[in-house]
Structures are given as structure tokens and as C-alpha cells.
């Protein structure tokens, strides 16, 4: 027996996280590796489990709206919206026209802001630092708009049950138009930085391929699902609010790899800008909030309502027993399933690909842990 045969090989177990620059918060991966190649991944979650659902059980409906803000802080408006929509379905409420349009404007602006964070962090995870700062530069414009509307930069508490919290200030519309005018050029800028960058393309093409059947079976939604070629967008397929009144495209790609997920989100940013522009054009005058009683008691019932968030399907399952507080609020975020599917599509790739896949899935941990 020669020397080399006597050598033993061990499984190389690498613990990545919970504090790691590219796990987008506090996710932990236990990687079983062979050199640089990943043999198995096990995501360990719960490092940001804040018991939001337990908290919701002891709050009134008005008090829950700020709690939902923290459910998915990159798109707080969507969280407010998802919850408000669920309660409105429960109570069969009529929403004033102006509020509907304001909601659409806010949701789409928030989608752009969220995609800009994704754009920055994706580039950062692949080692390019400058796009991160470019993304955040434009995001500040949107945050300014939100700030002048509701006074906060991140947790808005703006969309309430029955409408929106207050009307927009007068400077909002011109400022917003100003932003939309520069925004397309900005997206062109981003694309020049990354889309045809050779290194970016070889890092992303054919990495983390997610076939459509697998994507649906694992419950993947949003841009990740559309990148696999499934034309599924709740804004079209299960219209909520007044999305059926707007003219916009639903971009899809075919391969379902990281590069396609990138392309989809870039296109979505342009589409969102289009929707905002239409909504600003059509914005009617009038009330911004339906009459909601101070002590709000929706009728007893249960509802699961879902909206298309920037990360996929965001659902709120609310049970009311007719009192001021809900019996159960279950929050469902798109990242939950997208993180779940990562082990499936990472096996056999390198550790650097795990980072790319994680970034392209745009997983954000509070949605998983709540």
C-alpha cells in the first residue's frame, strides 16, 4: 500500500453565516464541500425570527399595520398592502378611487426601490462594488418621495385598512415625474455596467438553473419563476387593486439561470416606471380613505389574500372572530420558498456560485424568519 492510499479524506464542512457578508442578513448555510465544489447545502434559518405572527395576535387591526412593515422592510408598502387587502376582503370594503391610484404609485415605486437594493447587492456579491452605490443613489430619490408622503424612509405605515393614511403633498407629483424622467437613463447606466460585462455574464449564465416544473413544485414565485419561463404574475393572473386598468408587460425568460433572473428584474424596473407614469396621468381627485370606525371590528371569517411583491407572492392569511384583534395572522413571503429551493439548484456548483444564486434569488431573511 503506497503512501498516497493511506491518506484519509475528510468531508470539508464549511459553516457560512449567520454573520457573513453575502447571506443577506442572517441566514446560515452548512456546506458540505469537496474542495471548492459544494456537495450539499443546508440552510439554517431563524436568526431573525421575531415572532411577528404572535405579536399580531395581540394587536388591533390598526396596530398590526406597523408590524407588517417589519415583515419585509425592503418593500414595506407591499406588506401594508397585503394586510390591508386581506382585511378589506374580509370586511368587503369599498376603497376610494384616489386611494387606489395612490396605492399603485406607492407599490410600484417601492418595487423599484426594492429592485435597486437587489441590483446593488447582486453586484456586490459578485465583487463589483460600484453598481451598489449607483443603485442606492437612485433609491434615495424614491425614499425622498416616500419621506415627503409619510415621514419615514423605510417603514412607511402608509397604506391602511380602507385607503391610505393621508394625501400626498403637492410637490409629490412633479418630483415623481422628475424622477421618472431620469430613471430610464439610470437603468441604461446599470445595464451598461453589468448586462454585457463579460465577467458578469460568465459568472451568471447557466448557474443555478431552475426548470419551470421544479420552480412551480417548490412554490417559487415572482421574478425567479418568470425567469424560468412561466408567465405568472399576480398583477395579471389574480388582479388586486386596479392593476387591470394599466398597460404593462410581464417579462419572461427561458433558461431560468441567474442571468435571466437579472434580466427579468431590470426589465421589471422599467415596467414599474411605466405603471407609475400611467397612474400619475390618471390620478383622480377625491377622498383618500374610506370611513373606518375607530374601533374597527371586521366580521368573523377567514381570508388568504396574496399580492405580487418584488420578491414573489406575498400572502396574508387572516382569521377574524369578529373582535378587535385577529385570531391568527400568517404571513407568507416569496423568499421563503426561494431559499428553500436553493439547495436543490446549488449542488455541484462552486461556493462562488452559491453567492451568485443567493443574490439572484433576492432572498431577504425577515420574510423567511418573520
Amino acid at each position: 500500500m503506497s503512501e498516497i492510499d493511506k491518506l484519509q479524506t475528510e468531508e470539508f464542512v464549511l459553516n457560512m453565516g449567520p454573520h457573513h457578508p453575502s447571506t443577506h442578513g442572517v441566514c446560515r448555510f452548512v456546506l458540505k464541500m469537496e474542495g471548492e465544489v459544494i456537495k450539499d447545502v443546508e440552510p439554517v434559518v431563524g436568526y431573525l425570527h421575531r415572532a411577528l405572527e404572535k405579536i399580531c395576535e395581540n394587536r388591533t387591526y390598526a396596530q398590526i399595520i406597523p408590524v407588517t412593515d417589519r415583515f419585509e422592510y425592503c418593500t414595506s408598502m407591499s406588506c401594508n398592502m397585503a394586510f390591508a387587502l386581506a382585511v378589506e376582503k374580509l370586511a368587503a370594503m369599498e376603497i376610494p378611487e384616489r386611494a387606489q391610484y395612490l396605492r399603485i404609485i406607492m407599490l410600484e415605486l417601492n418595487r423599484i426601490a426594492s429592485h435597486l437594493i437587489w441590483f446593488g447587492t447582486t453586484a456586490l456579491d459578485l465583487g463589483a462594488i460600484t453598481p451598489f452605490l449607483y443603485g442606492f443613489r437612485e433609491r434615495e430619490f424614491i425614499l425622498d418621495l416616500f419621506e415627503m408622503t409619510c415621514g419615514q424612509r423605510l417603514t412607511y405605515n402608509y397604506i391602511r385598512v380602507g385607503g391610505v393614511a393621508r394625501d400626498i403633498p403637492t410637490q409629490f407629483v412633479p418630483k415623481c415625474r422628475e424622477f421618472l424622467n431620469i430613471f430610464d437613463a439610470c437603468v441604461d447606466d446599470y445595464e451598461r455596467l453589468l448586462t454585457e460585462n463579460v465577467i458578469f455574464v460568465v459568472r451568471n449564465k447557466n448557474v443555478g438553473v431552475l426548470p419551470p416544473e421544479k420552480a412551480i413544485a417548490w412554490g417559487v414565485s415572482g421574478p425567479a419563476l418568470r425567469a424560468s419561463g412561466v408567465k405568472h404574475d399576480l398583477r395579471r393572473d389574480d388582479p388586486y387593486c386596479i392593476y387591470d386598468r394599466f398597460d404593462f408587460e410581464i417579462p419572461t425568460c427561458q433558461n431560468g439561470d441567474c442571468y435571466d433572473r437579472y434580466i427579468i428584474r431590470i426589465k421589471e424596473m422599467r415596467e414599474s416606471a411605466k405603471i407609475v407614469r400611467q397612474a400619475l396621468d390618471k390620478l383622480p381627485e377625491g377622498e383618500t380613505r374610506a370611513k373606518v370606525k375607530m374601533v374597527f371590528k371586521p366580521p368573523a371569517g377567514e381570508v388568504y389574500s396574496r399580492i405580487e411583491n418584488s420578491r414573489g407572492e406575498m400572502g396574508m392569511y387572516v382569521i377574524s372572530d369578529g373582535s378587535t384583534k385577529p385570531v391568527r395572522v400568517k404571513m407568507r413571503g416569496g423568499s421563503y420558498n426561494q431559499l428553500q429551493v436553493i439547495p436543490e439548484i446549488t449542488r455541484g456548483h462552486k461556493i462562488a456560485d452559491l453567492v451568485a444564486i443567493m443574490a439572484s434569488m433576492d432572498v431577504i431573511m425577515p420574510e423567511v424568519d418573520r
Partner: protein
Amino acid sequence: MDREQLIKYIQDKFPGKVTLLDCGRVEPFFKVELGFLKEFCQAIRDDTTLGMDYLCNIAGVDSGEHYEVVYSVASVKNKIRFDFKIFPERENPAIDSVIDVWPGANWYEREVWELYGINITGHPSLKRFLLPDDWNQGHPMRKNWDAPDFVRMPEN
């Protein structure tokens, strides 16, 4: 397929095993018999008219008197969505795992197991999920759960 048609279709397809619950205005809610769950899921996924290939959500519920597990399913192809519930027993609650039907159910079931203490038979890895590894204070989402450092919101 609208609400009425869907209710009729499902009730005709699974007579006796599935009953309609009056708890939603928009999507229909059904109650599924405890032992029938896996079969039912398999059937609604493979049925061509329904084709519920997409699992939106699984939520455990403790209403105070009984446990419920709510499944929200959708069809990407046929654009249908509905929910159904099953009611595990109060003592030693247990349900079947539906991972074979929708692999995405994995974590949802782990969560139900951990936070509500509802056992999932047939689940491959029922390990600690959201709570700390050394957690020993029971299942916190149950209504009657309490712990020394758990501060309730004061009523005002």
C-alpha cells in the same frame, strides 16, 4: 372557473370526504377529513381540470379550542385558487406530510411542527427550525403558551 362551479366540482369529486366551510367571502374553504389529506392533495394536483400544482401557504392555527392546519393552493396553469383545512386532534395532534405532492411544503410543515407541536408523519427532517437550538419552552404559538420572560402587551 368561478367560485360556485369550483365548490360544486370539488364536492362532486370527493363526496363525503370534503365539506364546505363558511369562512371566506372570496375563495372557497373546504374541510378535509384527517386521514384523507394526502390522497386529496394528490388528487387535486393530478386532476387536469384543477391542476393545483402550486402550494401557496400552510398555516397552523390554534383557535383556543382546536388546532387547524390551513393549506392554500393555487394552479399556475388554470388560475384557480382555494384553501382547505384539516382539524387534527387536540391530544397528540398529527397530520400527514404532503412533501411528496409539493416539495415546497417542507419548511411550512417544519414550522407547523415546531410552533404548534402538530406532528407531521412522514416528514424527513423534523429538526429545530426557527427557534434557538437549545429551546425547551414548548410550542410558543399555542394560545395557552407562556414563559417567564414573555411580556404581554398591557390592555389599555
